[in-house]
């Protein structure tokens, strides 16, 4: 049973950056903007968070630096895609390339430094409970924050008027504009929110997951988070399930290997992507019947007719 706890702890740690990044991207995409620059915003978040923590000695300051870096990166994206109506796919890819390079530059002086990682919660009694103690009451702040974030996003999207407007903008920006809603302003805020979340997700890596900074340390997690949003078919509830499923697959395949179960590791590593493809097929199959949550205006450039 100790094994169960150990595996669960690893799964949660592996899932948290995916969940944080994907939650932000979900809001961005729900407003009708496809930001493929997730990986670039995450790695910038990682570099700035580590730099901030190393210089200030405080993980909180570092995490805020990470969030700020993500917001700044997404602001560049917003200026291009919303202000200048540039193609979103190209801008997003450019953002990733920019982030990868810039983070290497910022982080160069911090490679090899050591910091004290984010502390984990310890509630006497509760944390020491067998089996679930550490899983529920012994995590770092990022983990609790990621869960709270998704709940908040769910409440916002489905239980608030602003959330309804945001979804309307994502589904049909022309109608929303005709009704007098500030389409570009709403999208800009959604993009900035997504950037902040990506920055926080990036910050998790050097502050809690592997407490050091190395260029390129996100190693493709931004792309997995993008796949995750599609896998969740743009629904927050499914996003949580998907993130933990993706995390579980990546951890369990390591354990399966160490146990010598003989399952090809390459197959296991590709499972999240396979699952995403299958979900995409299912979405397009059932579009006529149940209607998809995919924002109808996703990736479409909007230029208001003044």
């Amino acid at each position: 049973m100790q094994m169960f706890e150990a595996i669960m702890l690893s799964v949660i740690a592996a899932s948290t950056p995916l969940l944080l990044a994907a939650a932000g991207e979900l809001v961005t995409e729900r407003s009708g903007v496809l930001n493929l620059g997730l990986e670039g915003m995450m790695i910038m978040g990682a570099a700035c968070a580590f730099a901030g923590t190393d210089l200030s000695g405080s993980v909180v300051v570092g995490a805020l630096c990470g969030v700020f870096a993500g917001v700044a990166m997404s602001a560049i994206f917003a200026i291009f895609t919303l202000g200048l109506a540039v193609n979103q796919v190209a801008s997003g890819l450019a953002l990733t390339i920019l982030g990868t390079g810039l983070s290497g530059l910022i982080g160069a002086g911090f490679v090899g430094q050591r910091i004290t990682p984010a502390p984990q919660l310890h509630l006497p009694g509760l944390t020491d409970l067998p089996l679930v103690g550490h899983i529920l009451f012994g995590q770092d702040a990022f983990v609790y924050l990621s869960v709270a974030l998704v709940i908040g996003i769910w409440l916002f999207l489905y239980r608030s008027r602003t959330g309804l407007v945001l979804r309307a903008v994502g589904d049909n920006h022309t109608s929303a504009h005709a009704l007098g809603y500030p389409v570009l302003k709403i999208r800009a805020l959604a993009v900035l929110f997504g950037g902040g979340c990506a920055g926080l997700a990036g910050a998790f890596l050097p502050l809690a997951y592997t407490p050091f900074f190395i260029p390129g340390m996100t190693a493709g997690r931004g792309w997995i988070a993008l796949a995750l949003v599609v896998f969740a078919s743009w629904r927050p509830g499914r996003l949580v399930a998907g993130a933990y499923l993706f995390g579980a697959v990546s951890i369990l395949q390591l354990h399966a290997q160490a146990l010598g179960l003989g399952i090809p590791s390459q197959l296991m590593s590709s499972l999240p992507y396979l699952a995403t493809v299958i979900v995409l097929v299912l979405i397009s199959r059932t579009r006529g019947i149940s209607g998809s949550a995919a924002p109808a205006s996703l990736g479409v450039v909007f230029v208001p007719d003044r």
Partner: protein
Amino acid sequence: MKKWNIIAMAAVLAIAMATFGASYAAEKLKIGFIYTGPIGDLGWSYQHDVGRKAMEKALAGKVETTYLENVPEGPDAERSIEQLARTGHKLIFTTSFGFMDPTLKVANKYPNVFFEHATGFKRAKNVATYAARFYEGRYIQGQIAAKISKTGVIGYIVSFPIPEVISNINATMLGAQSVNPNMKVKIIWVNSWFDPGKEADAAKALIDQGVDVLTQHTDSPAAMQIAEQRGIHAFGQSSNMIKFGPQAQLTADTDYWGDYYTKRAQAVLDGKWASGDTWGGLDSGMVVMAPYTNMPDDVKKMAMDTQAAITSGALKPFKCPITDQDGKTVECKGGDQLDPGQILSMNFYVKGVDDKIPGK
């Protein structure tokens, strides 16, 4: 008309001066490096960059170097290598196994450029290969692990099933078995040279399954850091990782390329470069063991004795007879030990490794 003549003459003069200037500058030998990881990986690519800097310093004023980092292995690498060849680099080091075929392809197109490919086995008239006998260090690590481990299980985090990785696993196990014939190894393939998060996860999974000494053939110090956190021991890879595991690191199998790079660049400068294969070990200084730390004195002494024996050639890690994992005796082509070809193309596990080589 006269005016035009003057302008034309001035232009000719300018071009001639520019050409002269360029050829004067080109007297400095331009040398290119292709790295698969970031130079800040503190592992493999970092060590190559240390070598590059050492060469630059040793041949100051005579050479000029360029490096491209984060170049993905495979067909894409061709563009990067060609870019260096096209921009006047006369000697190009491609420092990862996956650059093998792209290097040969570009070399074929640029017969006047010299190429050096690390850890590969394909050569051409203008392509030499070089590698270090990392397995010598791994043998020592195996012995140390067998002495230190209480659970009798080594954890091994690996990247891709290429011969170098396989031969290193085997050398580790042969070393371990020379101390304790019952040593076991748990192997996790992370299918990446560089993914700190995944390497850390693999380290956790191995420790959770009862491993108490970790070794790796991936490039980041993530596993070392996990070992430190969990209070077990580990070996550094490629470079000294003691900073990330002050209580955990036993030693590290580090590679030092500076002398080799300097020698090869000097050969080009002297017009004496020739293709060939260089395979240096502890004796040549290409493989250097980081200080033996966090172990009892008797283990340290054993490690140093083994190191001395390998350096002098008295101890051969791949000494015959060698039994493979199915119990068959491996053919011995090199007299009393496996020959270099067998080691460089190794595609089998030795007895006692309970794993299947992926894709085999």
